[in-house]
C-alpha cells in the first residue's frame, strides 16, 4: 500500500492493534473468571466515610456484548483494510468503491443521459425533469454569481435572462461560454486618454444611439480608440465579449460615474470554465434552460 512507507511501520500497527486487543480480552476474562481482590478482603475499602465499591459480578450480557463487538471487529479487519498494509480479503478501497458507484451510475442513468445529447433544445425546454434538473444545476453552480433568478448582479455578473448577450446567444456560443469560460479584457484608458477625454468619451458612450451623439466632443475619441472592439456604431463585438454600448443595458452601470470608471480603470470580467466540473450533458441541460 502506497501510504505505508515500510514493512516496519505496517508491522508496528498490526502489533499494536493485536497486542492491545489481546490485552483487552485478557482483562475481560480476568474480570469474569479470575480471582477478585475484594473477595479475599474482609471488607471493601470505605472512602470519605460512606463511599465504597460493591462487589457485584459484571453482568453476563455485557460479556456477550463486548465479545460480539470484538468478534465483529476482527472479522471486519479481515475483510477490510485496517491491519497495516494488509489490504483485506474484499480488496475494498475508497477508490474501488468510487469506481463501482460510477459504474452503477452509468448502467442506470447513461441511456437517459445519452438520449439527451440527441434531443433538440426546444424539446428539452418542454421536458419538466430536464428543466428541473437544469434549474438545480444552475442553483448549485451558477446562482452564487448570476443570482438565484439568473438576472445577474449589478456591477459584477451579467443578466442571463435578457436578450443582450456579451458572447453570443446561440446554443453553440453559450455552450462555449460555459465549457471554456470567458475572459473579457478592456485595458484602463486613463493613462492613454487623460481625465478630460475619459469624461468626454463617457458622455458620448452614454448618448450613443441618439441623434445628438455625434455632435459631442467624445465622438472623435471614440472613433480613434474604441471602434476596433465596440464597432463604429457601438454595437459591440461578441467575439471579444465587447458589450453593445448603444443600448441602455449596462454590465457595470450606466451612470456617468459608472461609465467613466469602466473606461478609466478598464474591466476584466471572468466567467470561469466549467469543463472539469460539469459534463456535456449537464451543460446541454443548462443551455436549454438558458435559451428556453
Amino acid at each position, binding site marked *: 500500500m502506497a501510504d*505505508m512507507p515500510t514493512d516496519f511501520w505496517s508491522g508496528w500497527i498490526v502489533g499494536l492493534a493485536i497486542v492491545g486487543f489481546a490485552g483487552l480480552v485478557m482483562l475481560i476474562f480476568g*474480570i469474569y473468571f479470575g480471582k477478585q481482590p475484594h473477595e479475599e478482603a474482609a471488607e471493601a*475499602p470505605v*472512602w470519605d466515610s460512606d463511599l465504597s465499591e460493591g462487589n457485584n459480578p459484571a453482568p453476563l450480557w455485557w460479556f456477550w456484548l*463486548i465479545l460480539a463487538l*470484538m468478534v465483529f471487529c476482527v472479522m471486519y479487519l479481515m475483510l477490510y*483494510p485496517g491491519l497495516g498494509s494488509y489490504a483485506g480479503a474484499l480488496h475494498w478501497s475508497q477508490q474501488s468503491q468510487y469506481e463501482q458507484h460510477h459504474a452503477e451510475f452509468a448502467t442506470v442513468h447513461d441511456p*437517459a443521459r445519452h438520449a439527451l445529447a440527441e434531443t433538440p433544445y426546444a424539446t428539452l425546454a418542454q421536458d419538466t425533469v430536464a428543466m428541473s434538473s437544469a434549474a438545480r444545476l444552475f442553483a448549485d453552480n451558477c446562482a452564487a454569481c448570476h443570482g*438565484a433568478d439568473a438576472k445577474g448582479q449589478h456591477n459584477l455578473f451579467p443578466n442571463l435572462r435578457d436578450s443582450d448577450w456579451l458572447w453570443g446567444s446561440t446554443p453553440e456560443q453559450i455552450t462555449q461560454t460555459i465549457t471554456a469560460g470567458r475572459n473579457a479584457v478592456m485595458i484602463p484608458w486613463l493613462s492613454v486618454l487623460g481625465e478630460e477625454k475619459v469624461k468626454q468619451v463617457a458622455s458620448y458612450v452614454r448618448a450613443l444611439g441618439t441623434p445628438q451623439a455625434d455632435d459631442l466632443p467624445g465622438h472623435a475619441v471614440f472613433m480613434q480608440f474604441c471602434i476596433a472592439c465596440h464597432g463604429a456604431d457601438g454595437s459591440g463585438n461578441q467575439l471579444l465579449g465587447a458589450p453593445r454600448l448603444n443600448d441602455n443595458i449596462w454590465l457595470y452601470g450606466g451612470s456617468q460615474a459608472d461609465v467613466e470608471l469602466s473606461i478609466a480603470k478598464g474591466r476584466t470580467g471572468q466567467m470561469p470554465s466549467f469543463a472539469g466540473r460539469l459534463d456535456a450533458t449537464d451543460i446541454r441541460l443548462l443551455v436549454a434552460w438558458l435559451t428556453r
Partner: protein
Amino acid sequence: MKGNGMLGEAEYYHDKVVMRLVQFSMLWAVLAMAVGLWLAAEFVWPTLDFGQFWLSFGRIRPVHTNGIIFGFGVSALMGTAFYSVQRTSHVPLFMPKLAWFCCYAWQVVVLLGGLSLLAGWTSTKEYAELEWPFDIAITVVWVAFAIVFFGTIATRRIRPIYISNWFYGALIIVIAMLHIVNNLEVPVTIDKSYSLYAGAQDAIVEWWYGHNAVGFLLTGGFLGMLYYFLPKHAGQPIWSYRLSVVSFWAFTYSYIWAGPHHLHYSAIPEWVQSLAMVMSLVLLAPSWATMVNGIMTVSKAWPKLKSDPALKFIVLSLAFYGLATFEGPMLAIRSVNAVSHFTDWTIGHVHSGALGWNAMVTYGTFYYLVPRLVGRELYSTRLANIHFVLALAGTLLYILAMWAAGISQGLLWLSVNTLGELSFSFREVMSSMKPYYALRLFAGAIFWSGTLMMTYNLWRTIKGANVLKVLIPPVPARWRINKSVAQPVGVEAQA
C-alpha cells in the same frame, strides 16, 4: 507545610477554591450558552450579525464551543476534582495556593481567549482554535492542575485509589498529551502560528486531539464526577467494582484509536479509518457498562429519586450518556457516516451528549454540592424541579430538531432523479430547514432559561454564607497508609 498531625491540630479540606470554580463554571455556562443561542438565531435570521465581523457566525461559533468546553466544562471538572480528590484521599489539597492559581489563571485564559477569538485570532483547528500564547498558558495551568491533583493522591492516607480519581487522572494526563502534541506550531506573530503538521497528517493529529478531547474531557472527566457524586448522593456503593475496572480500561484503550472516524472518506489512509471505526464500535461496551453501573447504583435509592432534583439530573444524564454513546458508534460506521457527515445529525449528536450528559450531570452535581459547601438547604427545590423539566424538554426538542434536520439533509443531498442529477439544490434543502432551526432556537432558549434559573437558585443558596470548614474524617485502620515519619491524623500521635 505546617504541623504534620501534631496533637489537637485539626485539618480541614480546602473547599473555598471549589466554590469559586463552581461559580465561574456557572458564569461561563450562562454566557457560552447565550452565545450558542445567538448562533442558533443566526441560522434563522442570518443577518443577525448586523454586519459586525465580531458577531459573524465564524467568529462566535468557536466562542461558544471554547467557552462551554473550557469555561463551563473545565471549571466544573477542576472544582469537582479538587473536591473529590481530597475526600477520597483523606488529605487537604496538595499545594492549595497552586490550586487557587489554577482557578484564577484558567478564568483569565478563557476570558482573554474568548476575546481573541472575537478579534479573529485563530489557529483554525476545531476546539484548539486558541493561538499559541494561549496554548502555552493552558499548558502551564494544566501542569499546575496535575501537580495539585496528583500531589494530593501521592500524599493520600488511604491506600486504595477510588475510581473517580482514575478518570480525573486520565483526563489530566491525556488532555496534556493531546493539547501539547496537537498544538506544536511555529509562531510567526503574536496572533499567528503555523502547525508543524501539514495536510492529511495535520487532519489526523487534529482529530486524534478532537475526539479524545471529547473522550477524556467531555466523557472521561465527567465520568469522574459521576463516579464520585452519584454513589455519594445515592448513599449506595458503586454497584460493581469489576465493571468499573473493565470499563475504565476498555474505554481508555479504545478511545485513543477512534479519532479518525471524523475523517471517513477523506485523504487519510483507509486503514486508519477502519481501525477508528472498529474501535468506536468496541467503545459501545464500556460506555454502556458505565451507564448500567450507574443505574444499578441508584436502583436501591429510587424513593430518593422522586423527591431529589439533584439525583434526578444525574440519573437522567446517564440516560443521555447511554443515548450519545449508542449513537456515536453508529455514526462511526462508514456507510452511516456517508449520510450523517456534514449534516445537522452531528450537531444533534453533539448536543445530546453536551446538554443531556455534560450539562445535566454537572447541574445535578452542583445542586448536590453547593448547599453542602455552605451547609444550607437549597434555596428552592421547586425551582430546581422546574429546571429539571426545562432541561429535559430543551434537550429533547434540540436533538429531535437536529435529527429531523440532519437525516433529511443527508438523504435529500444524496437523492438523484432519473437523469442521475441531484434532485435538490443545496439552497432548496437549506431553506426547507428553517422550521427545524427555529425549533432548535426555541429548545435552546428553554434550556438556557433553566440554566439561568439554576444560577439564581444557587446564588440565593450561598448568599451571605461562608464556605464550611469540613474536618477530615479518620481512615479505617485497615486501609490506612502509615507514614513512618509522622502520624497523619492527630489522635494517633498521642501514643
